[in-house]
């Protein structure tokens, strides 16, 4: 019923002879929450980087809303509606929390050099609209009262949430979260799960997340894909994947 918004076909990617991804097919439907799991080094983040344009695939094609995006640069892909967070949180540390989120609005605003200097009516209007959106995003992730802090002064959990807010500010249709629960305590994790649900319900986003914490993945994903050694070894509902032998073997290792 829902249409496919992201489709990757026969993706291969190698780093100087080392195959990181081999013939991966992957598709996400609008409105889904999809989990991407796999052991360390399976190629999950590489797949993310291909979707967001940080790498160009060695072979294969990626379509987003039927538009070929493989080979485009990140700054070209983001405006099309894909946003991401990073495994090793990459905030703009020496910027205020609010400015971090405002940066997310960059691709939704137009003011050029002239407008910035003269502060034309349209640029002022645009700026105040961006501020409003940014404030909303901050309230949404519950950081409204920290907007004037430096991003590097936030706690770990707050930084994760700020990164999500910043990604949401680019107004994406597809949100990619790279290990959002890594390093969080159980309370923070529970809050995060709730936040991700809210993102889909209230903001109507499609979400793809990489996560090691099975509670998170199995708790919120409607569909889970498993990568191992650069290949997709399984895909299905959380229940199906948990019973899949290849997956069990991949996680427990050959020796088990």
């Amino acid at each position, binding site marked *: 019923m829902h249409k496919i918004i992201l489709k990757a076909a026969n993706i291969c990617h190698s780093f100087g002879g080392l195959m990181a991804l081999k013939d991966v097919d992957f598709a996400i439907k609008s409105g889904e929450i999809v989990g991407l799991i796999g052991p360390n080094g399976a190629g999950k983040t590489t797949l993310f980087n291909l979707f967001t344009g940080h790498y160009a695939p060695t072979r294969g094609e990626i379509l987003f809303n039927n538009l070929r995006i493989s080979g485009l640069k990140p700054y070209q892909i983001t405006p099309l509606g894909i946003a991401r967070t990073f495994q090793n949180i990459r905030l*703009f540390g020496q910027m205020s929390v609010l400015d971090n989120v405002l*940066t997310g609005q960059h691709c939704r605003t137009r003011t050029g050099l002239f407008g910035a200097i003269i502060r034309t009516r349209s640029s002022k209007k645009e700026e105040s609209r961006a501020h409003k959106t940014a404030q909303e995003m901050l309230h949404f992730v519950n950081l409204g009262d920290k907007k004037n802090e430096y991003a590097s002064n936030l706690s770990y959990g707050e930084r994760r949430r700020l990164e999500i807010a910043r990604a949401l500010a680019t107004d994406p249709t597809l949100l990619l979260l790279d290990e959002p629960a890594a390093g969080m305590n159980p309370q923070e994790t529970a809050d995060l799960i709730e936040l991700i649900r809210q993102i889909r319900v209230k903001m109507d986003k499609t979400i793809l997340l990489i996560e090691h914490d099975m509670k998170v993945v199995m708790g919120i994903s409607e569909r889970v894909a498993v990568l191992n050694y650069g290949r997709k070894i399984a895909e299905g509902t959380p229940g199906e994947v948990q019973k899949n032998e290849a997956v069990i073997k991949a996680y427990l290792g050959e020796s088990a």
Partner: protein
Amino acid sequence: MIGPYYLQLLILIGINTIMATSLNLILGYTGQLSIGHAAFMSLGAYGSALVTLHFGFPFLVSLLCGALFAAFFGIIIGLPTLRLKGDYLAIATLGLGEIVRIVFLNLELTGGAVGLRGIPKKTTLLWVVLAVLFTVFILSRIIRSRIGRAFIAIREDETAADSMGINSTYYKTLCFGVGAFFAGLGGGLFAHYMRYLNPNSFGFMRSIEHLCMVVLGGLGNMWGAFIGATILTVTPELLRTVADLRLLIYGAVLVLMMRVRPQGLLGQPLRNGIPLLGRFFQQARPKL
């Protein structure tokens, strides 16, 4: 009444403030280490001086021509080199700066090594003050806008900036263009104050001087650039009383200042042990 010497110092402080603020945009806000600022200054200086000498345009028009000339070259030069990062960009801009100097040294039009004489004196303190205010005003407006946020985002984390939809090549080039424009403006004021130009004053030591002003004052701070420019313009003059020891002390002052306040007088202190500009040096660099 203020004497000519102090007037001259004030004018030089003003010109150096323009140089430092414009470099600050490139280095402090956008995080691109450029050691070729003197080249932009010389482009503006020669550009405006030649326009004045050959076409007799009004001062303001000559200044603008010089600045635009510098900006044009800033962009031409910036485009290919801006792919480079950190120290590599630094050394490339240094090399480009030297090339510009050598070209000026060999051009017939610019008087070559003998220099360009007879530039009319048009720069006054009023002009300089206006130019400083203009520079600071424009740069502050840029910094406090969407464009400024893009600059800072690139400084903080280019990869993350990219994924915010910021075209970092475009913004880095823009930043070089704007920085070169104001450096050219400073150069034009300088030329019409000194009434003589010779390429030898625009070597890499001059660029280093600008760099020191920005770092000393504090990166990414408008006031910092002004304060750095003032201190480094005035200190060597103050030290004239100690004659022989002048540059000896100057060198020691630089070392000590960095020891006492490595982030510069008005710079942001380091957070969590991550150096302010640590990240943009993070290009994969082959080791021994």
